């Protein structure tokens, strides 16, 4: 029994684990550390993903820029070709100008957020079809000629005397140009298809713009109408002057412009000016004026009245 008492049988087990609680880290602390670590890892991964996305978009950007550059070069080349073609064939010039205006307006609309999207192929093709149809229509259109005639400031009539007989069939006022525009048909209609539109210029109200559509299928009346002093007589088919960009017409198609408002000598018309200054031409011009004036019954009456009035005045003073 004594033997047993000498042997220490205790295992020295710590029955109270809570004795070292302050030395062991808390559960919550561990959790927060893990969370922090996780956050850091996820942020880094997110950053890596962002970086990848940025690289991808940058590459796409570079590709788009390259495509844009190539397309720009092609477009410019094509445009210069077209310009060459137009300069060689001036008849199509007006059609091209119309087309360009449309294209420019489309571009402006898009630049202003007009709704061009990445997948706008269908839209593009439909607009192309429309433009194609329009172009065909424009080619079918009859010949357009435009004449500018300066009138006196107090003259409000929309009459341009050109030697032909016209029948007025309409008048319209639009918001962009408040002065009315008058529509005329050739007196030989319906056999003659020519139409005339007369309107005052927006820029200069003293200028009448007459736009002729089509060609007369009958000879020019031999008897040229008398011309009032306010309105010069115009005969079409004489000369074609360059089209001033500021004045435009609603009629599409090839246009011949005869500008009778410009008094400034044109370098191209030097020869014609010389011819006009020649005594033969001036004599012819005076004869023409005299014959036109004598054909005008109102001028005759006015002249007769003036002469008789003068005689009466003289008689009264003599008495």
């Amino acid at each position, binding site marked *: 029994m004594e033997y047993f008492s000498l042997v220490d049988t205790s295992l020295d087990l710590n029955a109270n684990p809570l004795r070292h609680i302050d030395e062991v880290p808390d559960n919550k602390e561990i959790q927060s550390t893990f969370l922090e670590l996780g956050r850091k890892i996820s942020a880094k991964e997110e950053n890596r993903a962002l970086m990848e996305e940025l690289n991808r*978009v940058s590459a796409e*950007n570079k590709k788009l820029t390259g495509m844009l550059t190539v397309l720009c070069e092609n477009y410019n080349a094509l445009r210069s070709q*077209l310009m060459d073609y137009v300069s060689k064939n001036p008849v199509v010039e007006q059609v091209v100008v119309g*087309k360009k205006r449309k*294209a420019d307006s489309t571009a402006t609309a898009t630049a202003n957020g007009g709704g*061009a999207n990445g997948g*706008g192929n269908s839209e593009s093709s439909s607009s192309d079809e429309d*433009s194609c149809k329009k172009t065909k229509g424009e080619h079918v259109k009859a010949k357009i000629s435009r004449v500018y005639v300066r009138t006196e400031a107090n003259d409000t009539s929309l009459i341009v005397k050109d030697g032909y007989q016209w029948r007025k069939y309409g008048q319209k006022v639009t918001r962009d140009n408040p002065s009315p525009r008058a529509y005329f048909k050739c007196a030989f209609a319906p056999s003659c298809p020519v139409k005339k539109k007369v309107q005052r210029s927006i820029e200069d109200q003293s200028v009448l713009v007459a736009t002729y559509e089509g060609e007369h299928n009958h000879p020019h009346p031999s008897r040229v109408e008398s011309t009032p002093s306010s309105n010069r007589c115009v005969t079409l088919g004489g000369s074609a002057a360059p089209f001033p960009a500021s004045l435009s017409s609603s009629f599409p198609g090839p246009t011949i412009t005869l500008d009778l408002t410009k008094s400034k000598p044109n370098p191209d018309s030097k020869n014609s000016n010389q011819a006009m200054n020649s005594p033969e031409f001036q004599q012819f011009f005076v004869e023409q004026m005299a014959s036109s004036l004598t054909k005008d019954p109102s001028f005759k009456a006015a002249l007769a009245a003036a002469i008789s009035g003068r005689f009466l005045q003289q008689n009264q003073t003599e008495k």
Partner: protein
Amino acid sequence: VKQEASALVEELNRVNAENKKLTEMLTVLCENYNALQRHLM
């Protein structure tokens, strides 16, 4: 890390906007080019 992320997001937005603009320009130019080509045909 957070600052880097915000800078990256900003850059990404800028590049995306530029991309969109480029795409729009490309679309318009394509339309014009096609129209011109058809016209020349």
